[in-house]
């Protein structure tokens, strides 16, 4: 086994560190703590945060990559180990080899037979056409008729195990958190639901394809779960690349005014006047040309896909800073008129110090709100870009690629609906949780919202 660190893995763990430091610093400020308390004192805040953390956790587990050592081939020199070209992640291991059970092509959820007829030979060597049985579904059944009884029995067992795990997990938290003023029970119910469904999914997938298989015969449930890492990473990395540009330019424009302001305004008007999707498409295509012309840069396929993925994050980040920049510029303009900045001028405080001490801390709420808002927008954008063909590399699991692959199959009869459903469900839950959470964050942090509620 040899660990493998993709660039995006490195960045995501770096990002986790940066965000943790950022939030810890934020939490030192009592007003910010008060706002967070407001967010988490609602049940909705607890539920959505739990869901988001589950997604992030899956994404992180899926970012611990390694390559398995191959069995020594006869004749190779002693002590030399070859590694598989296939990259495995810790998540793959935890899913119990869900991704390794391939069929030939489409099969419906819990199906025992393939979706398409195929030429087969019977015992007498005669060719006939029928639905071939799946290789990894229901092999343990003696008779196809037992299928649903078996599913029920296995589900009940899995849910029992799931309940057991949930109780263990919650009991542990309960011991520490029972006196906490926050509505932890909402989070616990969510956790229990997540744990139960995870246990159920993993244990069922040993015997059936829970969400069927796609055109290439890959397990749809597995594909959908693998899409989580792509979605979460894209949503955070692109914003992370955009933040420094937007914040530094916006703050400088609003603070120094004059020609700095003119230049920054010119930059963002120019950038935002270009139709975003075209700019992104063109940039991605150009990068793809570059990758194609330099195939020797990447030793394995996944690294190539990873490079394209990072390029996409980078391009999304570089092309999307204008709206945040505009917001920060406006806020900085407002803040520099306030008494405390004026007083700092009267004390001869240097520009650098005013920016760091007085301006930046007071625009962080905008950065935070944008960060959460953009996250869900980027996850949705990924699907569209992949559909257009300028998104994630087709070799990398992503919801956009799943939708793209499945949309033409809707005209089939009977309909192949499960690929779309898998992508839809996993994407919808993440985006909904993020959207609801961002609403709460905005209500708590944006001084404008909720201000009208006060009396007199």
């Amino acid at each position: 086994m040899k660990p493998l660190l993709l660039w995006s893995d490195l960045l995501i763990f770096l990002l986790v560190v940066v965000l943790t430091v950022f939030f810890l610093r934020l939490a030192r400020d009592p007003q910010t703590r008060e706002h967070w308390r407001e967010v988490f004192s609602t049940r909705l805040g607890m539920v959505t945060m739990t869901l988001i953390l589950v997604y992030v956790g899956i994404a992180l587990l899926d970012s611990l990559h390694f390559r398995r050592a191959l069995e020594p081939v006869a004749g190779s020199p002693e002590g030399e180990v070859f590694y598989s070209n296939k990259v495995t992640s810790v998540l793959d291991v935890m899913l119990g080899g869900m991704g390794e059970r391939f069929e030939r092509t489409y099969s419906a959820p819990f199906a025992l037979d393939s979706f398409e007829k195929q030429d087969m030979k019977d015992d007498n060597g005669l060719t006939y056409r029928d639905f071939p049985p799946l290789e990894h579904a229901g092999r343990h059944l003696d008779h196809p008729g037992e299928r649903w009884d078996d599913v029920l029995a296995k589900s009940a067992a899995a849910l029992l195990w799931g309940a057991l795990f949930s109780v263990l997990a919650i009991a542990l938290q309960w011991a520490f958190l029972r006196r906490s003023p926050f509505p932890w029970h909402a989070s616990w119910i969510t956790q229990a639901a997540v744990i139960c469904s995870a246990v159920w999914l993993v244990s069922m997938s040993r015997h059936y394809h829970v969400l069927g298989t796609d055109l290439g015969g890959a397990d749809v449930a597995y594909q959908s779960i693998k899409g989580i890492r792509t979605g979460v990473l894209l949503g955070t990395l692109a914003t992370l690349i955009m933040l420094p540009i937007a914040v530094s330019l916006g703050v400088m424009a609003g603070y120094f005014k004059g020609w700095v302001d003119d230049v920054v305004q010119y930059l963002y008007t120019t950038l935002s006047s270009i139709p975003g999707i075209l700019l992104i498409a063109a940039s991605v295509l150009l990068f793809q040309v570059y990758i194609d012309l330099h195939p020797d840069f990447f030793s394995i396929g996944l690294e190539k896909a990873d490079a394209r993925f990072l390029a996409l994050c980078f391009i999304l980040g570089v092309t999307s800073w204008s709206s945040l920049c505009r917001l920060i510029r406006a806020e900085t303009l407002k803040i520099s008129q306030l008494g405390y900045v004026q007083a700092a001028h009267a004390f001869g405080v240097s520009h650098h110090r005013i920016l760091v001490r007085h301006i930046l801390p007071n625009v962080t709420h905008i950065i935070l709100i944008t960060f959460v808002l953009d996250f869900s927008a980027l996850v949705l954008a990924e699907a569209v870009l992949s559909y257009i063909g300028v998104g994630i590399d087709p070799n990398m699991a992503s919801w956009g690629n799943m939708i793209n692959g499945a949309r033409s199959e809707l005209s089939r009869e009977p309909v192949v609906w499960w690929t779309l459903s898998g992508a839809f469900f996993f994407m919808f839950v993440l985006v909904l949780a993020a959207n609801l959470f961002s609403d709460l964050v905005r209500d708590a942090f944006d001084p404008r919202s909720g201000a009208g509620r006060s009396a007199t």
Partner: protein
Amino acid sequence: MTTLAAPVMQVSNLRVDVAESGEAILKGVSFELRAGEIFALVGESGSGKSVTSLAAMRLLPNALRITGGEVRVGSEDLFDLSEADMQTVRGERVAMIFQNAMSALNPVQTAGEQVAETLRLHTRLSGDALRDRVVQLFAEVGIQDAGARYDFYPHQLSGGQQQRVMIAMALACEPDILIADEPTTALDVTIQAQVLALIRGLTRSRNLAVLLITHDMGVVKNTADEVGVMYRGEIIERAPVDEFFHNPREDYSRRLIAALPDLTRFHDSAAEESLLQLDDVKVYFPIRKGVLQRVVDYTRAVDGVTLKIGRGETYALVGESGSGKSTLGRAILNLESVAAGQITFLGQPIHTLGRRAMLPYRKKIQVVFQNPHSSMNPRLTVNRIISEGMDSLGMGLSAEQREQRIASLLQRVQLDVALGQRYPHELSGGQLQRIAIARALAVEPELIICDEPTSALDVSIRSGVLELLQELQRDSGVSYLFITHDLSIVPSLAHRVGVMQAGRLVEQGSAEQILTRPQHPYTQALLASVPRVDST
């Protein structure tokens, strides 16, 4: 004055809670309004006076709820009416005018339309008759050129005219009762006097019963017939106005009255040595026009001001909003570039100094701003706010010395040393303004520019801050340039007074001279609107 008339509106035992927490806002408020009389409800911010008026009209925001009491108009209890019936009461029988007419008027509807709407809601007037009636109302409330003003949008009218439109709107359907919620607070003093005179005149001519809500004892004294003092959701004292001012029963009332200016005692001009001198200082802002945005003209914010401030002296710069007094303050601080003239501090011209060369003078000239909430960075503790100047101006203190100094500063402004660990939003306006003073004092300045330091504070807190400023002056001999729109705080404070109008200093002299023998008509007008304790 007939106090025997039957009450037109009777509020009894009115109670209001915060819907969520159940915290009591009004704890049983009772009073009655009589035709032809003005009942003034006085109190400081948060005392519940505005809530009283909104509750009586059933216009409370959702966060508050009425929990008891009744409001009788004639024989009806307004709290028993249906919402539809209530809508016929509002505007027709009970009308309201609000503070800050600019935001209380619909910005995208013409002034005339807004008055006409009230008439449309409650009468059958329409067409030309409606328009004529509105124009007639405009004329009655003293809007010049009433016919043309009909089609003006609110932003095209001056503050005084906007408030007159509000009054016209309220009077349109000839209500019996008028509720005026701080009707003059946002206005300049000279306009304020006119609007109050109008309200008083209408009270008599239309036999209105008026509830006047205000925080300003001067307004009460000049306008009201009866006073109710509100304090923390209760009316603690009620009396006819003359009796109230001569013989207040409650301590709190006495404090409010004591804040009125005493125009009999003045400070002597003490200073000999000149500290700051302005010679014909001008500050211009360019006006740009046309395709190329060429500078076609200048706004003359400060247009040739000459004055002198001596050591240990307080110079009060008085003027209404937009007169350029704050711009002048900023120019002295070298935060605004001076177009012409000279600013000399201790014999050294400072308006031409660059950022670095100005640093030694930053220690000597400091500033206290109007709004204490926006003049403190909400992310810093009080200790760090106070130490900012010491850090950046390099006072060369060790960490320990600095801490001691902060503690002693807090004591000097009469605050608990423990407040140093707090954040601005945890403190009251009065405390914050003391901290702003401590921050300025930290670098041991010789001149502090106080830009309306008390106008955001309640009356009872205001006098404390002013006393503190004077005490500090006696102790350390610091000079103040005191920028204010409020002549009434001048006598207790200033040695010399300058009156500014439209960028020019129209009159200056000793405090006694300006306040007792004003020469310029503008000064006279300002002075006329100041309420006095002794003028009974």
